[in-house]
């Protein structure tokens, strides 16, 4: 069954090489908690190459969070760092990798972004 989470990780696996991750190495395990079960996703960072698997072997960082939270995060409605500060996410191990996961998440929907004053005038 395709879920938003699976789609997110499938897309990530398809990207293969992410240039701005070239300074990173290590494995991050994401534990998504749903009432009675825990879903595991592991992201391996290897100097820009990104692989995704589902095994529970050793990881340099382990992130545990409610699945409902992650569903909102992959639509850009939640940011990782504030949720860590609120205590909704537990992190063991390398925060550096956790921050990289957060940078792979999309931004919030419906942003205006930077606008060029002269472009605006030209379009008037």
């Amino acid at each position: 069954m395709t879920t938003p989470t699976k789609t997110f990780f499938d897309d990530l696996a398809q990207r293969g090489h992410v240039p701005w991750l070239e300074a990173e190495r290590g494995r991050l395990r994401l534990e998504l908690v749903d009432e009675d079960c825990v879903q595991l996703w592991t992201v391996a960072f290897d100097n820009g190459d990104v692989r995704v698997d589902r095994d529970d072997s050793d990881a340099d960082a382990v992130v545990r969070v409610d699945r409902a939270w992650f569903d909102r995060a992959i639509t850009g409605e939640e940011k990782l760092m504030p949720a860590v500060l609120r205590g909704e996410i537990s992190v063991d191990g390398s925060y550096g990798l956790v921050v990289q996961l957060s940078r792979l998440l999309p931004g919030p929907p419906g942003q205006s972004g930077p606008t060029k004053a002269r472009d605006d005038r030209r379009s008037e």
Partner: protein
Amino acid sequence: MNGRTVKVLDGNTFVVSDESGDIEATPTDPTGLFAFDTRFLSTWVLTVDGTRLSPLSVDDLQYFETRFFCVPGAATVYVDAKLSVGRHRTLHNGFVEDIVINNHSKDPVDLKVRIDAGSDFADLFDVKNNTPKKGAHLAQVEDGQLVLGYERESFHRETVIRADQPAQIDEHGLTFQVRLQPQQRWTTKLNVTPTARRRGRRLPLVFGSRAGRTSEDLDAELKQWHSQAPKLRSDWEPLKRIYQRSLTDLAALRFSPEVAGAASMPAAGLPWFMSMFGRDAIVTSLQAIAFVPELTATTIRVLARWQGSVIDDFRDEDPGRILHEMRYGESAAFGEQPHSPYYGAADATPMFVIMLDEYEQWSGDRAIVRQFEQAARAALNWIDEYADLMGNGYISYQRRNADTGLENQCWKDSWDAICYRDGRIPGFPRATCELQSWAYSAKQRAARLAREVWDDADYADRLEREAEDLKARFNRDFWIADRQYYALALAGPDGDQVDALSSNIGLLLWSGIVDEDKAEAVAAHLMSPEMFSGWGVRTLATTEASYNPVGYHVGTVWPFDNAIIARGLRRYGFHQEAARIATGILDAAPYFDGRLPEAFAGYPREETKYPVQYPTACSPQAWSASTPLSLVRTLLGLDPSGDHLIVNPALPEHIGHIELLDIPGPWGRMDAYGRGRLTVTAQRME
């Protein structure tokens, strides 16, 4: 709090108390135990038989430990010293306090020793803005410990207090019944640990690599820090003290944010800015690069790891942008403040590229330049794709977070800092002049890296062309011909010149963006009585309508600003002027116990004779602590050139000579010597 405060700090944990060691914070004063931008103790009062203590002396042993010597009773001419009380406070997973009570009398005594403890769990922003709390406060006795707590939804912060002697514990403190024989002493050790709950688990709030370090560890680390830095010798006695003070303060302000592992970078300043700030960390690292280059390496890694990746209006984030400020308190957790992190700085991104190049020159470490090539390219792309809000080829800023974002996203970030000569405040976007100077330097330096390290000659050519073009346009568009200086900014949709005479024009010299034929006029303005106070260059000239000698960015003198100006003056051959500024700023330091504050007032030197500290200036402040290092570098004329260190001293006569031994770099370690030959006319202090 009235009277002197006593501070101990380590990274982003610090304690501010009175001279007897007590804390009685009001909602708006920054005293207490703070960690991760939250106050974990607002009350901490020691009494003996219900009597408060009076301080006899305070020993600031190290930045992370202090010893208080007190006696019970009010401070009067006659002190009944049958009892004395010592408090030894060390930062260690929060803090540890050893209390020692001595009975100096011939008779046994029975004493009730009491520590009152409480916490308001104020977010540092609550203290700054006096905002009320939204969650619930708790206090309970649990397994022989006092736990003070604060809860708001899943946000839990707790202060755990325990003693190693039997105590009666209630919700407001700990009481010890003590019987002391003549000449006997009683001791107890109190541990105060800030904690957070994450998914139900209580965890100490200490960055991983700093957890568990004892005062012995910290002491050994500080000794190593000093021993690895170059040794300074000078005929001018105060300089030696200023130099040691700077190194120690930089050590104190080091912290290891969660993504830095065991390495550390500078936090910005006590008490308001004990966190990660992109601009402050870069400036501090660059000023200290000839002395403690490892700060720069960590700053590069940490800022790259947090480089913006998406468009987020609330955080003023764009892809490639370097962060402005990170906070860890309640207001960031609940999105009441955008600092998680906040990206509203327009200069940190080009400065990141400058820092990468400068670090390579001072370390010879090309691996780091390769490792962060993509981060540098993303930063350069930000300049062209996201920062040109006027569509005129200049970096400008306009906040997208209109509630809690910063109006001014340059170093002068107070609301009224950017103004016209007549005091009017310009519209948006605003392109301040120094931003263009950073962009110019970033492109030039990246061109070198592209050619020599990234093996991309096309990119190098393109960057060089863009830099040249930028310089030509800048000298045309920002130059105010009839006033003979550069506009503070171009602003508004049409990019009108903002014509105030400001210290920003001094920052332009360092990058080389100033046309040779305009440099003399710039230098003359900087050294004019309207700008140069005798201590340093004012942020705004006295002739401008908004000038205020105690206005944060509109008249005060900032040491770091002057250090960059002095470097730039030397670049253009104004050695005398550079020495005059360096000497003025260094002359001010002894008035502050060798520690330059964030800013001091713009009054003329001959009027006040001593530098007047800005009322709420942060101290120590990282970029002020690193300023004397930068000034020594400027006076000695130190510059790396491949495997060689260039030494080209330009020292004032009264400094005599300076020796700087064991300067680290690609050359290994080298020494530099300079002898004072310049006559500097600024008034000397007596």
